[in-house]
């Protein structure tokens, strides 16, 4: 150490810094890449000069502009985040049982996973659905199925999130019609429909029609709900799928918020006042393994959104400025090797989400690289959240990592990287042209390939996969959840009965009304609700949309 500490002269900060630099130059360092999970270079130490922060301008207080420190003044002292486990498999009846199981174990909101036929606007008895009904989610093809799904669950008390996009307005119509059949006033119904079509073209790929008519349906949903289902979140603008498709943290942040601003533009262009619909926009992010980068990402998201909404779109209602979001732990971080280790990964990711100020959270189950989760695995995942909430004392203080030189520097870096993408997309003509040219898709694919190479070169480590391996020839030692093949038959026979028993002329009349509204204008969600009451099926309504609006052609990026 420096000899200048001897004698009369006091040690200055400059002396300490010089001594530290000298020590660093001599230190023997581990042979790894010191970067974030997304590949951003990291310094060995951060100080006040690295954050680029003006506390008054960039932080403020929780519940105040620019919301870096959280959207509520009291944060988790007032109310914990909603523990919302995404679930759905087999028939509506089977998923209804899982929902009741989760509510009995302390879950506070529902989240519906639909199967691929439903996500693509196909009925369970469509020939293209064969083998996929009920496999990766629940099949819901009609109002009757929605009634079975929600049987015995009070729709004025429980809030429900529905992960569906291409045919989102149709499923929302089933939900609104279902609440009416339970005698519940739509004004009391609370929940979220994902309804984020832009990221479908970019990353998740469950679309129904091309971008322009899809965006029209979204503004129809905003307009209908602002008036009649005022507690419903009309879009959950989702980075989750962008990240899971391979993007970096900065790309996830940027593309999500860019999509958000596109929806705002469309709402305004459709004649809505920004403060009439913006408070109902919500977000959905991934929480990946890089603990500090993820926390910084959540903080940056709130700051960027608040500034865009107030300063660019002129929103004056503070609720329009708030980036409220749901978080799910990273499915891609789970490994098939030594699957119990996934419990620990998920716990780290969930903790990052909570320290980042999430409004609701899904924790993945350890067995999800093998199949849909078992009840036991789901329960451990839910208990993980409960431990974070109740045992480790982290929910008492708002934005606990604020002022950390490192976390503030990461927050600033991610904000700058995201804003650069805003400029780039603008330069390339905006969101829809960038989807059609495959710009987003290429950016995401490039990051996915770089990440795969980093793992395969060993510069990024995954325990059980490229280090600390065990002989994995024997296969997983854990139980697997299998979908009963009877679910598909149950769905098909239910649909056959529905078509036989309904008033087929009334159903046809409503389908014709949907077609007219496609051509002549008029609120499509209103037409879908009427069609739902007339027992039109998802596939029938979606087929009208496909005929009227055409199908999306995926740009070639490979």
């Amino acid at each position: 150490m420096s000899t200048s500490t001897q004698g009369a002269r006091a040690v200055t900060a400059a002396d300490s810094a010089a001594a530290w630099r000298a020590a660093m130059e001599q230190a023997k360092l581990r042979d790894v890449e010191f970067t974030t999970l997304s590949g951003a270079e990291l310094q060995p130490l951060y100080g006040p000069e690295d954050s680029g922060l003006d506390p008054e301008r960039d932080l403020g207080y929780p519940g105040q502009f620019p919301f870096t420190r959280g959207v509520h003044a009291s944060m988790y002292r007032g109310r914990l985040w909603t523990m919302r486990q995404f679930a759905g498999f087999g028939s509506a009846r089977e998923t209804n049982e899982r929902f009741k199981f989760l509510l009995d174990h302390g879950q506070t909101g529902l989240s519906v996973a639909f199967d691929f036929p439903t996500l693509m606007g196909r009925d369970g008895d469509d020939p293209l659905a064969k083998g996929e009904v009920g496999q990766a989610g629940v099949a819901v093809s009609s109002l009757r199925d929605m009634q079975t799904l929600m049987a015995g669950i009070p729709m004025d008390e429980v809030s429900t999130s529905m992960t569906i996009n291409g045919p989102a307005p149709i499923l929302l119509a089933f939900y609104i019609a279902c609440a009416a059949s339970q005698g519940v006033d739509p004004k009391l119904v609370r929940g979220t429909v994902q309804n984020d079509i832009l990221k479908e073209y970019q990353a998740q790929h469950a679309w129904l029609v091309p971008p322009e008519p899809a965006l029209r349906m979204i503004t129809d949903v905003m307009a209908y709900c602002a008036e009649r289902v005022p507690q419903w979140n009309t879009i959950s603008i989702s980075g989750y799928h962008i990240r899971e498709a391979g993007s970096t943290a900065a790309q996830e942040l940027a593309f999500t918020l860019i999509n958000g601003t596109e929806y705002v533009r469309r709402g305004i262009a459709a004649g809505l006042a920004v403060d009439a619909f913006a408070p109902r926009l919500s977000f959905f992010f991934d929480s990946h393994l890089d603990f500090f980068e993820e926390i910084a990402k959540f903080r940056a998201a709130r700051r960027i959104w608040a500034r865009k909404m107030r300063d660019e779109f002129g929103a004056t209602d503070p609720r329009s400025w708030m980036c409220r979001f749901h978080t799910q732990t990273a499915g891609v971080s789970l490994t098939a090797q030594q699957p119990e280790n996934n419990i620990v990964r998920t716990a780290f990711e969930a903790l990052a989400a909570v320290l980042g100020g999430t409004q609701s959270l899904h924790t993945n189950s350890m067995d999800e690289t093998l199949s849909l989760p078992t009840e036991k695995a789901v329960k451990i995942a839910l208990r993980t959240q409960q431990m974070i909430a109740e045992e480790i004392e982290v929910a008492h203080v708002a934005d606990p990592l604020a002022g950390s030189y490192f976390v503030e520097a990461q927050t600033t870096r991610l904000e700058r990287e995201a804003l650069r993408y805003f400029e780039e997309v603008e330069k390339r003509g905006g969101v829809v042209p960038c989807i059609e040219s495959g710009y987003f898709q290429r950016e995401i694919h490039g990051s996915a390939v770089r990440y795969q190479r980093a793992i395969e070169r060993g510069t990024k480590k995954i325990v059980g996969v490229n280090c600390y391996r065990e002989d994995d020839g024997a296969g997983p030692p854990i139980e697997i959840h299998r979908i009963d093949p009877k679910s598909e038959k149950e769905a098909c026979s239910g649909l056959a009965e529905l078509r036989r028993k309904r008033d087929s002329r009334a159903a046809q009349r409503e389908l014709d009304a949907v077609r007219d509204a496609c051509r002549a204008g008029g609120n499509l969600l209103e037409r879908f609700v009427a069609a739902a009451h007339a027992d039109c099926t998802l596939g029938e309504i979606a087929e009208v949309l496909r005929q009227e609006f055409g199908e999306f052609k995926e740009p070639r990026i490979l």
Partner: protein
Amino acid sequence: MQRKIRVLVGKPGLDGHDRGAKTVASVLRDHGMEVIYSGLHKTPAAIAEIALQEDVDVVGLSILSGAHMELFPRVREELRARGMGHVLLVGGGIIPGDDIARLEEGGFAKLFGPGTHTDEIARFIREEMEKRWAKERADV
């Protein structure tokens, strides 16, 4: 001169998860193979038709929807119906161990699970094709 291996990477069914398929397609290209990617949401018949038109040596299928036991065998049948029963058939995705065993008994050369090193996929395909070509030369 080394003959180029022609591979079709196919996404059967309604599942939109294509990160794995596209990553593998890029890596196989880096390994010197000619790779055609089917794009999303293809029926088994459409995949077999592309395989025929492109005259590929290998068809690799990727699926994460749980529908592999329905869709994978149907791709194999559609290939056979077009006289393409000889192609090397491989696959990957979220597929439980018992199903892997059944598919490997039913005409799939190999199923690759999560965490597989992509070099292993490339090496497997190259070795299998070289064996086949050696046999073809011996038969002539």
